[in-house]
């Protein structure tokens, strides 16, 4: 997030797109609710009539995968109506002329044609955001999990840049991170293109620095993403070490994923439960869980916080850091003789400019948000206040593209996937917490009531959901949360592995999978016999 969570109570106009925040980041959503109670206007763009949509002042029900069109339409109105912040554009940005010219053809009427959102609502949304003193954008995977994920994010950046809604309290471009330490994993350099602290691996100076630090020359080329690695399993990739990820259930195209992992010569999985992925491993190493290990994590607002152990791990389970160190030492690698997590974190701080002002003791009270470039620095709750990291904000010329697969006679329905409040991801944890079943015991496909009738389905009955890649059987839930022609399921339940269906395409830059769009067919079936 460019801005701190506390800023969520400050905007005049809140624009939420592709985020089901009341279910996926409920505590952050409480802050938005306070802003709304204080008079802030809420615009929500989402294909589904989610909880946020019910709370909104303006709901934009766009067709899945049409975000770029909607956002171009909004940018067009902002430019046409002269709601652009000329001072900001002049002083803080570059490439605005070409961008403003580019916008001319993308009228709200054009955007309506593609997105299904009425042009007059696009006008209103643009005016509210464009005229706001403090306009803030919040998004999640509904923006990024598309073949045009980067285009979507850049479209949002364009809106913020043209209106100067960045670098100030109650504004910003704010992606909500989905996992407790997904930010920290990136901060720590577990990326194919970056060393710790987002230092590019393709910069010879960084290569030299890490050669010095690590005692080995590392490729000047960026590595491949996990998505590509899975494609290459059995060919280039022969051995894989996976820590704490149930790849088989969380990744798109399960059949492809299973085939990939099975074609490895060697798979080592570190986890706390025998997940479907661990079942495929040659070696499974038991790790400590939440509450059993000391460590550090970073949250969605870049706040670096301490994790603390309160109970001993079961049996012989060991902390992840210890396991990886042992493994490295057995391969004869040096620089892995750590005796405590504190020393590991302090090394991370010493090699990473964004953590340079931090160490294990300084983060005791969760005060710091990175970057913290030196010991006297107070941390950076708000990014881009004076200037952007690269100097000036760059407008991007973005065009609408259709999703990788679009609906057809064979697959006439849009499927979109996500999470639910009461379950987390593949339920390896929430599925094993007593009581959660009382609130959510099984998966159900959310279908609009008119479609339930039109497709010969029954509320509470069963259907077969098929895409070009496979099919799953799932119960039907009739609900107005789904618009006509679009259905929703979560990927939480292993008996309804919807990721058998997904995997139509990937963003060419980030290789993030288009998990939010998958054309499917929905057919009524009899209830499956138990055991099948």
């Amino acid at each position: 997030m460019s801005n701190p969570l506390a800023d969520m109570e400050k905007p005049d106009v809140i624009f939420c797109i592709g985020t089901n925040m009341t279910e996926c980041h409920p505590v952050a959503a409480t802050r938005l609710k306070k802003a709304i109670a204080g008079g802030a206007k809420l615009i929500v763009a989402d294909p589904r009539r989610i909880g946020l949509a019910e709370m909104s002042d303006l709901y934009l029900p766009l067709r899945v995968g049409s975000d770029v069109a909607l956002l171009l339409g909004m940018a067009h109105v902002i430019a046409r109506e002269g709601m652009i912040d000329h001072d900001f554009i002049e002083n803080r940005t570059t490439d605005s002329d070409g961008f403003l010219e580019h916008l001319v053809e993308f009228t709200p009427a054009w955007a309506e044609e593609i997105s299904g959102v009425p042009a007059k609502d696009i006008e209103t949304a643009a005016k509210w955001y464009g005229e706001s003193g403090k306009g803030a954008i919040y998004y999640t995977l509904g923006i990024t999990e598309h073949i045009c994920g980067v285009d979507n994010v850049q479209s949002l950046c364009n809106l913020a840049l043209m209106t100067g809604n960045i670098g100030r309290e109650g504004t910003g471009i704010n992606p909500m991170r989905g996992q407790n330490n997904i930010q920290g994993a990136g901060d720590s350099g577990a990326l194919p293109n970056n060393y710790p602290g987002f230092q590019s691996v393709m910069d010879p100076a960084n290569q030299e620095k890490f050669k010095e630090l690590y005692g080995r020359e590392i490729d000047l080329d960026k590595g491949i993403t996990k998505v590509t690695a899975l494609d290459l399993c059995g060919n280039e990739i022969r051995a894989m070490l996976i820590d704490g990820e149930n790849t088989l259930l969380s990744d798109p195209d399960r059949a492809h994923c299973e085939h990939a992992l099975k074609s490895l010569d060697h798979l080592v999985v570190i986890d706390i439960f025998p997940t479907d992925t661990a079942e495929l491993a040659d070696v499974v190493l038991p790790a400590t869980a939440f509450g059993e290990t000391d460590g550090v994590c970073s949250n969605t607002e870049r706040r670096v916080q301490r994790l603390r152990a309160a109970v001993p791990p079961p049996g012989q389970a060991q902390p992840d850091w210890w396991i990886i160190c042992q493994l490295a030492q057995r391969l004869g690698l040096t620089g892995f003789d750590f005796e405590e997590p504190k020393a590991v974190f302090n090394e991370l701080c010493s090699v990473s400019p964004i953590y340079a002002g931090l160490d294990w003791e300084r983060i005791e009270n969760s005060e710091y948000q990175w970057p913290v470039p030196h010991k006297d620095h107070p941390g950076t709750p708000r990014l881009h206040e004076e200037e952007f990291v690269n100097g000036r904000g760059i407008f991007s010329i973005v065009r609408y593209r259709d999703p990788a697969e679009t609906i057809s006679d064979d697959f006439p329905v849009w499927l979109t996937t996500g999470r639910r409040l009461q379950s987390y991801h593949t339920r390896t944890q929430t599925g094993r917490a007593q009581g959660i079943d009382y609130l959510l015991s099984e998966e159900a496909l959310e279908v609009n009531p008119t479609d339930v009738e039109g497709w010969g389905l029954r509320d509470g009955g069963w259907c077969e959901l098929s895409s070009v890649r496979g099919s799953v059987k799932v119960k039907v839930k009739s609900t107005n949360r789904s618009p006509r022609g679009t259905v929703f399921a979560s990927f939480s339940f292993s008996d309804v592995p919807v990721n058998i269906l997904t995997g139509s395409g990937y963003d060419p830059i980030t290789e993030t999978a288009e998990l939010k769009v998958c054309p499917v067919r929905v057919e009524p079936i009899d209830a499956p016999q138990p055991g099948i």
Partner: protein
Amino acid sequence: MKSPLPKETETITLDGEEVAFTEGETIYEISERHRKEIPTLCYDPRLEAFGGCRLCVVEVEGSRNPVASCTTKATSGMVVRTATDEIEKYRKTLLEMVTSENRELDVDSLRGYASQELTTLVNRYEARTGRFIGAQSGTSNSDDKNPFILRDYDLCISCYRCVRVCAEQEGDYAISVMNRGFHTQITTEFNGELRDSACTFCGQCVQTCPTGALADKKAMRAVDRPGEIEKTRTICPYCGVGCSIDLLTKEDRIVGIHPAMDGPANEGALCVKGQFAFDFVHHPDRLTTPLVRGEDGELHEASWDEALDRAAEGFRRANKKHGRHSVYGVASGRAPSEAAYLMQKFIRVGFGTNYIDNCSRA
């Protein structure tokens, strides 16, 4: 809205001492800053002041009756006395009346974060006198089968903190107040079970209840477990918001969760997962020993030495036979940063490649 800086310093006299205040501050807030220990039951600093319990009354010169300090804004020159004999007598009488209604005063602290507030005040004011005997209010909804929230309204004192936290903090408006006086009851729409209401089971009502009338059913399973309750500050293991929590442990078990009121990301708020879905940690499915695939194709228990040797050997062989670009590492977005840091270091030092990623792309 509080103005950022007062035009000129304004003061009140608080127990004989001249103290400054900011425009809009209440007498209670000023007193808090000066550690006056004014008793309250309906007060939660995160919520709009309510003025219902009247325990925070103070004497204000020129005012005919004692005033509720939580709802009275300070004005320049006010002379306030927070603990005169008469005020303390009022407070004791009020507490005697409150306690006359409740089935029990001593509840286990596992019921909730604020559950000891009434007990603590009753002890402080020696209000366990039984001076008032008579009607009792509240009817427990023990037939609500939900596994998380006990609705023991015999202990309810109608402070409405639960109703207010649900509305003001959560924005959910799942519970409300029905009837008046002794018949007052906290209820859901149509007086049904919580599951059928707008309740999201975030547990905020439980944690703000000052009497234990609303209680954490999961934590209460550990009431008879031996050992002292210890608290450990850490971060919730679920989404990326990074809510601060206090783990409640008894010896080697996590028995419950308290939201951290001073947590920077959550300021006391939690959701159903963070509040109640902690016990996966002690689930019998946990992996407790390394496993190695045997010749029979099955995974078998192994020693750490055996498993680590086997794991290392596989990477060594791949590297030797297929080159250093044949090994790939996937770091976790769920494990601490030390794990991700060492994973990338393992790949970069071990193989000289950038064949490393984390699970953020799917």
